[in-house]
């Protein structure tokens, strides 16, 4: 059996890659995918601990995260499309409306 440490290290690596993408990529769609990556890293951690403890709480949490991620994807993509229609661009650095 694979020790839990490896799962956790993999999850941490995925999370860091996702976060790096969120912070540096310019295209909103890619940023979005990186967010998904971070969520899945968190899922992996939940499942690893569930397996270690042998109960189902981790599984329940993972299902919740999947549901929330689906909803978030639906709304997020809709926003991205709306932004593209109004501004003709999905580059994050072009959208600075939070300043106002």
């Amino acid at each position, binding site marked *: 059996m694979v020790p839990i440490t490896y799962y956790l290290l993999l999850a941490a690596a995925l999370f860091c890659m996702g976060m790096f993408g969120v912070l540096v990529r310019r295209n909103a769609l890619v*940023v979005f995918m990186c967010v998904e990556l971070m969520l899945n890293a968190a899922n992996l951690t939940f499942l690893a601990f569930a397996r270690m403890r042998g109960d189902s709480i981790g599984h329940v949490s993972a299902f919740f995260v999947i549901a929330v991620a689906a909803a978030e994807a639906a709304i997020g993509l809709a926003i991205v499309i709306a932004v593209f229609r109004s501004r003709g661009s999905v580059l994050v650095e072009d959208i600075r409306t939070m300043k106002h």
Partner: protein
Amino acid sequence: MNLAEFFQVAPVAPDLLAPSLGLIIALPLLGAFICGVFGRMLGRANVHLIACSAVAGAFVLSVLAFWATSHTAPGAGDGARRLLAFYRNPFGIEADFVRYALAYDYGTWFAVGDFRVNFGLAVDHLSGILLLVITGVGFLIHLYSTSYMEHDDGYWRYFAYLNLFVAAMLTLVLADNLVLLFVGWEGVGMASYLLIGFWYTDPAKAWAGRKAFVTNRIGDFAFLIATFLMVLLVSAFTRQANAGDYAMAGSNSQRYQAALQEKGPLTFKGLEKMAEGLMDSNSDKVDLTTPIEAGPLEGYTFGGVMTAALLLFLLGAAGKSAQLPLYVWLPDAMAGPTPVSALIHAATMVTAGVYLFSRMAALLVLSPTAMATVAIIGALTSLLAALIAFAQDDIKKVLAYSTVSQLGIMFMGVGMGIFWAAVLHLVTHAFFKACLFLGAGSVMHGNGDETDIKKLGGLRHEMKWTWGTFLVATLAITGIIPLSGFFSKDAILHGVHHNHLEGLHWVSSAVYYLGLVIAASTAFYMTRLYLLTFEGPRSKEARVAHAHESAWQMTLPLVVLAVLSVVAAVYAFPLMRSSSGQPQAVFENFLSPVFSAMNRIANGAKTVELDTSVPHLADYVFAWLVALSGGGAAAFLYLRFFPARAGQPAPAFARAVRRTAQNKFYVDELYEFIVIRPVKFMSFILFRVVDALLIDTVAVRGTAWVTARVGSALRYVQTGDAQAYAAVMALALLGGVAYALIQVMQ
């Protein structure tokens, strides 16, 4: 059924009536609410109807309550009647009922820890007689006001305030504990403020209202401190008292503690029991010289704290009852409508101090020092006010100073332990002084609001009813046999002469001789007032050529009050027998259940020698001669001497004396210099340093300045770039993780 039996059977049984005592207060309060809120819509006649009927209803209930205090039931024996009691005193041992009283407790008003105040009302003979005076004279003055205020647009406001005043005054009198009394005490102060400044568009009148309010506040502050001292005193007493003390008070420890739980520490009956427990004794009991062992008053003796509290109560009473050093507001209070002066500033509110000390007579007699101070303050105030009244030309100002002077006489009586006479003088004074003020109002009403007596004169032919009643009331206050004022004043002077305070024997004689001077002065200035207003030819400077007599609503109260100021003399006749068989004045006998504890303490503690003799014929003749000499001097001066010398300048010294008296001995200027200027200066400094600099500049504007500067610095951080924000979040998360890791490692 004979007459005595008629008065001993109340038409409404006391136990039925007791729960309705609150209605006596509620009726005028309701009247005030209706007149104040809906008065303008209701119209003048409806407001008159509501205000008068509210007070009339309170008067009927007061009569019933007063009647019920003497209710008896058929007893054993031939025609004997047994006194029933309806006022259980929880502080005494089982079946300790207060005689000639009825009470009802509406339950807890508020409770904080051990401290509790009940909404308890009680009527005994003292508060009963005051209820009758307040509602009876109050009703007459309401009736009078309907005519007096007929041209004023603020009628609804006026009657709302007047009803509010009556409600507050009734609360003051009905309360069975100090806190509820204080509610009434403040209520009458507020109503008085509102009514003095009734014509608030005139700045001088609004200012007079403020002066009254501020002066009263000084006294109220002292009253509050004294109340707190009483709470501490009661707790110290319950901590240290032993079985002997409780036995002397007719109680025991469990009983007293349970009563404190039930009624709170500030009921008059509880304080009375404590006073009895503190009486002097030669054994190991707690008495006035015992030091207090614990608490904030540790180290002081019971007697010392008691004296301090009573002196603070004196300051409170001096504020409300216009005594030195706080009397200055009352003459200015004449800015209000004249019926208000009659009701509040002559008959009822200003006597609250006398009532307070009569209610707490049992405590007052524990401290000869406090009693002597009360008597001396009263005598000095009375003399000063009488002298100022000599030279005042405003008819209402003369009456105002006369009120201050008469209140001083009542304080003399209270201070020398002749409580019943002080209360009797309170009652008779309410009658004749209300009559005088209403007469003055009638004179003003008929003469185009002229108040200068030099510009009146000769009114006896034009205003016959006003003249007749004013004459009766003048004779009553002057002290001419057989009017009530003579007997009540003489009863006070007699008591003052024959009572002696332990260790302070000189006070008795000093106050007595001052009293004689005051009596002569009273006769002088009242005769002067009467002569200049009603006798002689009509002044050439009169505002209207012919005065007109007032309407029946104004003359009827005058007649009733004049009749009352004659027949109230019956109260002072020695028609009754005391328990030891001596002749006793009717009123003394009537109030003896109220003052029984005071008598027990005075005899037991030997702080004051109470004399029970009645005046001899020679005393009466002497007092009569004193009054006649004062009145005769005024008559000679103002009918013969001055008219004969008309046109010639008066001697220089006479003008100087007159100027000083006319300027009220410069007391107001003295207060201005000693108190008001320094306070204003302090306020100016506080305004400049604390308000303008610290609060305005540093706190208020400083906060705004710092916020603005910080904001303009932080705006450079806000780029609007989502990724920059996310980077900050990530860094913060990293910091949190690093911190957690360090914690885990350690």
